[in-house]
């Protein structure tokens, strides 16, 4: 019998239909019951809008009780690793989201090897998983490995800074790096284009292996394929995050209100002027490629 056919014979009989084609649905139902784990790391110097973007992406307010240090306090601060865990549910699907933050990264006067605590943390999670895997009770292993690291690149430079290059080179073998161009509303469309080209060129030049979104299946429809292609060409994603709701054209949206206009930062691919690619980010982490990020973390990239 042909394993691919879903539909019985045209005359309404079952024919040679066995029924194991429902397997994906069964897996789906079990997974949904179990819930998903996802660990997302955000890295980059302070003030690039990391927390705002995280809140924007997942429509939460994770950093309510955060206390920001002033410059004098930061002089003696070292890079910390902090974790925020939040359980999100949408349409019956449960997600346990862990956000790993790296406050202090890149802020000091001397930032030599400031990526080391980050690399150590990632290695520790791998070590932990490895031990759990080798252990006797493997039923409920908690996967705390970092599945994806969003690295924030400053829009105020001329491309990658020495620190950006160092960080990504130290970490690209350990974690899936998704570079984003932060606070993109600072830049005009031509500046965004120029920055992206420069960054892409430099990533190539320095041999940095950022996360490659997997090719979409050949049987997907054309529109999806085009969308996927456009997504890949937008890397690094130029992002704008917002925690505030503003009124624009009679609608209430998440955005930023300037004296010269309103920027809509609404994540889920809302109306966006062509060519800016600003609203694209959430799709990869939450949409079609989320599974890929999870798989990617398990094996070597």
């Amino acid at each position: 019998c042909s394993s691919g056919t879903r539909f019985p014979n045209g005359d309404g009989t079952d024919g040679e239909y066995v029924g194991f084609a429902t397997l994906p649905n069964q897996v789906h139902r079990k997974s949904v019951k179990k819930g998903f784990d996802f660990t997302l790391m955000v890295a980059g110097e302070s003030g690039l809008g990391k927390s705002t973007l995280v809140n924007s992406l997942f429509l939460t307010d994770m950093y309510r009780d955060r206390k920001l240090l002033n410059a004098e306090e930061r002089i003696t601060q070292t890079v910390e690793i902090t974790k925020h865990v939040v359980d999100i549910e949408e349409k019956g699907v449960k997600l346990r989201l862990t956000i790993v933050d790296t406050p202090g990264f890149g802020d000091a006067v001397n930032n030599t090897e400031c990526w080391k605590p980050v690399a150590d943390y990632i290695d520790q999670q791998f070590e932990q998983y490895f031990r759990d895997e080798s252990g006797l009770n493997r039923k409920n292993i908690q996967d705390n490995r970092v599945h994806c690291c969003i690295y924030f690149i400053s829009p105020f430079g001329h491309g990658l800074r020495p620190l950006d290059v160092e960080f990504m080179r130290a970490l690209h073998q350990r974690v899936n790096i998704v570079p984003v161009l932060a606070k993109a509303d600072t830049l005009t469309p031509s500046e965004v284009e120029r920055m992206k080209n420069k960054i892409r060129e430099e990533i190539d030049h320095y041999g940095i292996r950022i996360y490659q979104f997997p090719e979409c299946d050949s049987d997907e429809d054309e529109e999806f394929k085009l969308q996927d292609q456009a997504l890949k060409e937008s890397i690094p994603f130029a992002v704008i995050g917002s925690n505030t709701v503003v009124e624009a054209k009679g609608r209430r949206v998440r955005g930023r209100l300037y004296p010269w206009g309103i920027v809509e930062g609404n994540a889920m691919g809302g109306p966006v002027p062509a060519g800016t690619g600003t609203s694209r980010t959430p799709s990869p982490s939450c949409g079609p490629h989320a599974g890929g990020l999870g798989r990617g973390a398990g094996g070597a990239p």
Partner: protein
Amino acid sequence: MFKGPVESKNEAAMSELVPEPRQKPVVPMKPMGINANLLGYIGIDTIIEQMRKKTMKTGFDFNIMVVGQSGLGKSTLVNTLFKSQVSRKSSGWNREEKIPKTVEIKAIGHVIEEGGVKMKLTVIDTPGFGDQINNENCWEPIEKYINEQYEKFLKEEVNIARKKRIPDTRVHCCLYFISPTGHSLRPLDLEFMKHLSKVVNIIPVIAKADTMTLEEKIEFKQRVRKELEVNGIEFYPQKEFDEDLEDKTENDKIRQESMPFAVVGSDKEYQVNGKRVLGRKTPWGIIEVENLTHCEFALLRDFVIRTHLQDLKEVTHNIHYETYRAKRLNDNGGLPPMTAETEENHESNL
């Protein structure tokens, strides 16, 4: 005939001995008025016009330094300030040029003319500042450069046959560019300003201010002002150099409300409401550089060029340079430093 000035001086001396506030001086304070009526208009006030004419003929020097991480729009801002291409924009470091390992100092001079007045403007750029992974002591080359200019001036001054008009290469104003993170100052910002506010006039500006909404800007400025105060950083205009009450009120307002100026620079023009304005065109609107509701560039320009230009030079000469000079003379045991000429004379005398 002219008893006035002499008498008021004695009177001032007397009032020191007898510390009673005298409401009505016995001798009128402007006796010239009375005598002037007898002789007619003297014309002493024309000295202002004479000075103006002389300045126009000789022109004047102004040296401005820009410091900040690369990409903060320093060159664009200077070009916008002086409405000319006086600073070459760096488009970043291409692969052949490496980022300088130490901070470089690049001084480029231009002569700008306006209304018959010639200004020799020198823009001093500091590429490489704050761009390394390890930025420790990256302000040292800058401090060294500033002191070298003081030294040059000092050597000219103590020269026996010194030039009529000593060329002034001293840094009159240092614009420090703060990155608009929205949080607070960086440790590097504090370190730089702590070290350099004692040798040069520092004017902190918040770069690329179009990153922030109005509320974010207000909050950020407040936080930065507080941090500067807590750390004892005296930026220009320094409180201790306010000459009189008028200065103090004016400067207080600037210090406590306007500074640091949140600026946006641009050398592109766009049409807005029938006018051509300098600005940035974003998909959400045009940011007008000279529009006070958009950013504070106009305030910075008026401050540095239209009201405090002369004062910046005076404070540099009367305060910072004098501090340097005093230190040098003290180190030398009260003797002026040797110049090439005095050294020769000294040797020939032996």
